[in-house]
């Protein structure tokens, strides 16, 4: 059980951000496998492929071309086979109302992107381990709401 690999999917159109996330995940204590997609259209195509192992948690950038994070979130919550994926939204800045709105629309986690790498690593480690608790301890996913 505990030895399992945690599957992480990251959707971000910014190559630097994708690299930063990958580096951060490499340094955290949990065993993770990170896949990335470059925008919302790619993301939905990926999630609708039949042969993939669905990620335990999806990190979703709000601002992406072609299809943005909020559109993806709504689509994901409408699709039956994706309902159980934890969705962590991240963005550079947002008002309390905007954050609450993403939760209402089905996000589990809202991350305000930190400015330094150490902080990012700490936040990602925290989010992934809390998600793992929900995953392994039979907690009610509907109540998984976390704002960082």
């Amino acid at each position, binding site marked *: *059980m*505990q*030895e*399992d690999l945690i*599957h992480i999917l990251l959707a971000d159109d910014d190559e630097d951000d994708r690299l930063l996330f990958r580096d951060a995940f490499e340094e955290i*204590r*949990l065993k993770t496998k990170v896949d990335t997609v470059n925008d919302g259209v790619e993301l939905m195509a990926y999630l609708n492929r039949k042969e993939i*192992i*669905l990620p335990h948690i999806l990190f979703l950038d709000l601002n992406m071309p072609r299809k943005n994070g909020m559109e993806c979130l709504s689509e994901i919550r409408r699709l039956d086979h994706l309902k159980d994926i934890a969705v962590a939204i991240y963005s550079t800045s947002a008002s309390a109302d905007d954050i*609450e709105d993403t*939760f*209402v*629309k*089905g996000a589990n986690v*809202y991350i305000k992107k930190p400015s330094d790498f150490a902080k990012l690593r700490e936040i990602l480690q925290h989010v992934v*381990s*809390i998600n*793992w*608790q929900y995953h392994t*301890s*039979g*907690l*009610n996913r*509907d*109540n998984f*709401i*976390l*704002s*960082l």
Partner: protein
Amino acid sequence: MRLYFKYDMSKAYKVILGEQFDKLGIPYTFIAFGEVEVAPGINNEQIIKLSEALNVYGIDLIESQKNILIQKIKDAIIELVYRDEKLSNSKVSSYLAKKLNHSYGYLSNLFSELTFSSIENYIIIQKIERAKQLITTEEITFSEIAWRLNYSSVAHFSAQFKNVTGLTPTAFQRIIKKRREISKAD
């Protein structure tokens, strides 16, 4: 004459596992390849039977004694937090040590080593989860929740809730309510 087969590993795996779970009467859900979710009530004897039955097919259950002990610690904490009466003041550490027959130091180290989270942290998470459940399912005031979960005051409860979730209990309640309104409208 030779016969040639092609086979779908994923399908074979699901059918074999499904048959064995059904035989033992254990409800299950496939999460991903190599991963099955079962109800928290499953006992060790059932796990052993399942593991033996699946061994024949070359399927091994990844489960060690240590993991079983971790599960027992978690179950004991959940039992404590979800008891209907007020959480007693008796210290959780002595409760766990007595119930599981190991020193608290041993349990605590093992827990941190295997779950990347401390027992203390796990208890807080469970208490907050219990609070969320009470907030969303029962007509109950925050003061009542604070009292039931043994917080010294509603302010202390709200502060810990905010610390763990990033939201106030009021904001959490509002979000869940709005979500329910949306799903009703669908």
